[in-house]
């Protein structure tokens, strides 16, 4: 409101096109993440430095995208989607193999993971498509939207990278959902999934895949094999108790019983050391960021911005839920990091880029309205 009354007297945040509450939530989350990482990495300063560097880079990306007008995203949505899809094909053809999966494209001067771009390109493109039709969506538009989601999902699934492909698929589907996918279809899908799963179990899945599913359902059945991670994680969480063992005093994490404790399983470290109180605080923080994201989306001026902002926000939630769910034994283990807390690479930059788009949507609407 202040902005309208005195356009010449903008605050610093407004000048930088940043949303105050969202920025505060993100900074608080990242600082919390740094503390947990310090403990989880075993006071590893090199790791802290690398993580901080990435944080700076990620916030830079956010700041940059915040300055871009939503129309620009609208304009680039389709070219970006097409280029990303082409790169995914190239990855499969000439990609760089790392850790048993083909995800990287060597551009000569840098290695590049096209699937990260697609995390934003897919919701942008689907939002572009959906917003070009009146809402709620008609069935044929819905089919086209699904296909747009499915193509990159299948390509990424081939790499193989289950976690990312799921995230990209849901990012697209969220656009369709927010765009008014009919409840009948949603209900139908909800009914089809269990039936389809059971059919897959009977006729499609290999024995080793079945074993994975069984291990997920009962990790204790394979305590030294694939169940080890989840058992140790649950021990860490459970032994933390209500108040936690204290920062840097988690035995499961400090004595290295917990695998992948600075990356995918960092939530277990957090739970063990800070207890249920800490977890409640963390969930509240995530809930706040998601709420703020959805508010920004609902206040956006045009459908494209609404759908894109809403999808980015809900996808962020999926990250959180899938990660926490997998380390606490609610969901199967799929390699999804805890957003903005886990140590690691490109996903953080992409996430912050997404928040950059939210900032842009949030701060450019007035100007749009005046035009």
């Amino acid at each position, binding site marked *: 409101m202040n902005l309208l009354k005195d356009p010449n007297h903008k605050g610093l945040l407004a000048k930088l096109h940043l949303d105050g509450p969202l920025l505060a939530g993100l900074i608080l989350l990242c600082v919390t993440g740094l503390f947990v990482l310090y403990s989880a990495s075993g006071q590893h300063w090199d790791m802290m430095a690398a993580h901080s560097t990435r944080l700076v880079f990620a916030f830079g990306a956010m700041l940059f995208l915040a300055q871009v007008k939503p129309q620009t995203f609208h304009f680039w949505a389709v070219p970006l989607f097409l280029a990303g899809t082409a790169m995914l094909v190239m990855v499969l053809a000439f990609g760089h193999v790392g850790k048993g999966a083909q995800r990287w494209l060597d551009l000569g001067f840098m290695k590049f993971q096209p699937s990260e771009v697609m995390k934003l390109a897919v919701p942008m493109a689907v939002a572009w498509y959906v917003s*070009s039709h009146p*809402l709620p969506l008609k069935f044929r538009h819905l089919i086209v939207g699904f296909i747009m989601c499915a193509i990159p999902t299948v390509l990424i699934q081939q790499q193989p990278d289950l976690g990312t492909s799921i995230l990209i698929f849901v990012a697209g589907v969220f656009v369709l959902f927010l765009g008014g996918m009919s409840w009948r279809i949603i209900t139908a899908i909800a009914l089809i999934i269990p039936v389809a799963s059971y059919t897959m179990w009977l006729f499609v899945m290999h024995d080793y895949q079945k074993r994975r599913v069984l291990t997920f359902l009962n990790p204790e059945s394979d305590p030294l094999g694939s169940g080890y991670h989840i058992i140790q994680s649950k021990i860490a969480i459970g032994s933390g108790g209500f108040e936690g063992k204290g920062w840097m005093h988690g*035995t499961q994490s400090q004595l290295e019983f917990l695998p992948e404790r600075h990356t995918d399983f960092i939530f277990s470290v957090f739970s063990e050391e800070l207890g249920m109180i800490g*977890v409640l605080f963390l969930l509240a923080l995530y809930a706040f960021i998601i709420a703020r994201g959805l508010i920004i*989306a609902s206040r956006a001026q045009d459908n494209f911005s609404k759908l894109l902002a809403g999808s980015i926000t809900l996808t962020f939630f999926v990250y959180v839920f899938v990660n926490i769910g997998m380390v606490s034994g609610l969901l199967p283990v799929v390699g999804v990091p805890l957003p903005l807390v886990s140590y690691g690479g490109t996903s953080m930059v992409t996430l912050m880029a997404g928040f950059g788009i939210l900032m842009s949507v949030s701060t450019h609407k007035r100007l749009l309205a005046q035009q």
Partner: protein
Amino acid sequence: MIKKRQSIQDPAAESQLFNQRALFGYAVVLICFFVVVFNQYKLQVVMHDHYVTRADGNRIKLIPQPPNRGLIYDRNGILLAENRPIHSVELIPEQVKDISQTLMEIAKLIEITPERQQEFLKEVKYHRRFVSIAVKEHLTEQEVAIIAVNQHRLPGVTLEARLTRHYPYGELFTHAIGYIGKINAKELDKLEEEGVTANYAASRDIGKIGLERYYESQLHGQVGFQQVEVNNRGRVIRILDSKPATSGDDLILSIDMHLQKKAKELLGENRGAIVAMDPRDGAVLAFYSNPSYDPNLFVHGISGKNYRELLNSPDRPLVNRVTQGVYPPASTIKPHMAILGLEHGTVTEQTRIPDPGFYKLPNYSRPYRDHVKWGHGWVDVYTAITKSCDTYFYDLAVKLGIDRISDYMKKFGFGSRTGIDVMEESAGLMPSKEWKRARHKQNWFPGDTVSLGIGQSYWSTTPMQLALSTAILLNDGLKPTPHMGRYFRNQSKDTSLIAPLERVIEVKNPKNWQISKEAMRQTLMEQGGTGFNAFKGISYSAGGKTGTAQVINMAANQKYDANAIKEIHRDNAMFIGYAPAENPSISLTVTVENAGGGGSNAAPIARKMMDYYFTRQSAAGAQP
């Protein structure tokens, strides 16, 4: 297209739709978060204790600490079994890059046999990577120094020291003290049965024979524990709690090292056994079986070659002759027989019988020869003992009958274990009618009783049994429990191992016991006694009885000629004796295998032992 879109779009309705969907989405978010919170509550609050236990199970390990084994001293405080550090060079696989390369490096510095190298490489495969494995044990001081100097070039290689048993007197005490060795599967089962496996969690060794085995539980001590925190690779991060091990109690023996040494010296190359005992309480002063062997070989794990040598030696060094050697007691039991005869009234002090040089059972033609061809003439109980007259005892035995002899002699401890504090003990054999029927499916013949009178005919005893029977005789029917262990000592107090005397024979007339003892005194102290020559000129008074045990049966007309028969078929020399005669403080039992007559071969040894004992006693002055 743009026209079409603009014509149909209704921004307000679209905005409302979006808001509904966003709100619904947020509701799902909150529901999911609630599920997460509920799950966290289940894990962190409801099942908290369960997971704490499991987390502690992950990180907390108990490391047992071995106790120091109790030391063993002789009665003078001389150390007979001690704990010495042995050094080994060990290696932790986790900390070594190239194990075979490192092994080569070590082999360049100290000698490691190719077989050991192979064995070691095999061991590495089966061990956990952070547990150190011995490359070579029992390093010499020089080897320790060489490794110490070069250790900086060998990361992951360590020098370790642990305590192990050492017996400084080597073969001198092997049969008495025994030795310890690695716990085997059978012993482990036994420990499990007794429910003491936990106490051996850190122990490698256990008493195998002798006192080490008998007093295992007291000597071993109590295991200690260190509670440590480990990481996921088992490396110790810090010590949380520790309960130090309690050393085993020290064992002080009644054995006198000097007397033991003397016994060994006196037996020399002969096979045999010497027991010196204080008859008043059964305290064993010397316990020696010859030949012996070095117990330290067994502590370190004896080689197959050395073991076979010991096992197959015709001298049978592994046999503990004191408690496992079974010999016919021969004439040494004549004093016991005399007491039975007197107490039963078969003979009196005045009874005299004629000895023509042989004895014949009524209605039998076979003569039982006396060791003096022409006989001893008229013989009373004194002469019968001092001159070891066989005919007198043939006659006495026949008059008493097998049942009475067998019952009475069993009271002297014949035919059963003495209860001395070693487990390697034979019960010997006191024959009886029932025994012969069961064992030989034969009836007891009168001829069997005849030779029983002179301690032959199936009767077999161990030297320890003879020593015990002598003590019972000297104590007028009171039995001490023979023992080498006198007391245990730990920081707080001493625990005596001496048991009180126990009446095993009712005395009818004390005079009868006196008669037998007087006859034994005369045997050594008076001209004509079979032990007189051996004890000529002693400065103290003594009593005793000689014995010469036939190893092979002679035909009635055959004459024994020591030179004509193989050494192992020669007679065993036996002797029991004590001093001072009036109030004995030491008794001696000497058995020398295949040495010939007891008077000339066993009695002199006993005399020298007594001489040495009293010389040391007087040198020690007022000391007991």
